């Protein structure tokens, strides 16, 4: 996971970590809290992001390529993780995803490019499963087969993700939206997903207390 995200982070001028990391660099980094090592964790970062949202007719007047919000989902969960039904997924993300897919009238396989909340390497794998890109327990296979690279079945975090960009908390969601907007406008020169029409943003708050999923179309 970190090899992929560091590969794309190296090409992102706005990323905090811009060094491409090899598997050995990652496996040999020190243990922060077992089994997570230094390079499994995103860095705290300062940052700001801004999104201009307008009514459809106004949007058409201020940009040549408006990006449309076609699906929104938001859900919450308990403050305490210990009492939750599952520790191998975030129910708030699953529910938010379900709502957003329903509103957009789309399925996971209709998504061309996604940004997910990879605050830790394991979080991106859980997101694959929570969003239906992989079945429960099969998220690891998706990255092992390189299906989440820019030329894979479902490209994910091809801007380097939080692991490379850093995590400025309040600005992170906006940064994820920006990446998908650039992808759908075909402006992501560093790692453009060919023919991207529909993109998805998955953002998590706290330790899975809040889940937000947004689906965008060009």
């Amino acid at each position: 996971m970190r090899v992929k995200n560091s590969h794309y982070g190296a090409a992102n001028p706005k990323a905090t970590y811009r060094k491409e990391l090899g598997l050995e660099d990652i496996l040999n980094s020190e243990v922060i809290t077992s089994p997570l090592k230094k390079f499994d964790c995103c860095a705290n970062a300062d940052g700001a992001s801004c999104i201009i949202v307008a009514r459809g007719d106004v949007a058409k007047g201020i940009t040549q390529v408006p990006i449309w919000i076609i699906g929104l989902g938001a859900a919450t969960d308990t403050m305490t993780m210990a009492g939750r039904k599952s520790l191998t997924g975030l129910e708030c993300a699953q529910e938010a995803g379900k709502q957003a897919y329903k509103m957009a009238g789309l399925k996971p396989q209709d998504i061309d490019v996604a940004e997910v909340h990879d605050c830790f390497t394991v979080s991106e794998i859980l997101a694959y499963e929570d969003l239906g890109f992989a079945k429960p327990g099969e998220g690891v296979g998706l990255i092992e087969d390189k299906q989440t690279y820019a030329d894979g079945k479902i490209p994910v975090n091809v801007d380097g993700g939080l692991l490379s960009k850093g995590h400025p908390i309040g600005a992170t969601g906006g940064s994820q939206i920006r990446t998908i907007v650039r992808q759908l406008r075909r402006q992501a020169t560093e790692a453009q997903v060919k023919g991207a029409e529909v993109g998805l943003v998955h953002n998590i708050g706290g330790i899975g207390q809040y889940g937000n999923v947004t689906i965008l179309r060009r």
Partner: protein
Amino acid sequence: MGFENFGTVSFTAAAKAADFMTHLEAGKVMTTRCRNCGASYFPPKADCPACLSSDVDWFEIKGQGKLNTYTIVNYGPTGFENDAPYILALGEFEGGIQILARLGRDIKPDDIKVGMSLAISPVKLPDNRVAYEFNKV
């Protein structure tokens, strides 16, 4: 009396379930069960997330639990730096109650096995602070 003396760092003084601290200082780890729907929680909740009732009973967590998973924390977050390394564990007790707590220093990393039996007890910290931890059975 609230949570100001709880743990290494207390994140709140006021809490609706502040009786937890009174019980802890009396040597008991207590939590709540909803009288309306029967759901039980740890940490205790004065309001039930399942049915939204505020009619709850206190009961003591007793007996043996089992270790579900754990992590060795080498770098503690702000306020916990001097405590590291320490071990955070998830234990499951009677009625399926899941509790996150530290493993007592009497349990060494080499002795930890997922599935092993655990007890829970209050623990006194410096400066009159209190917490709870898992211990060997």
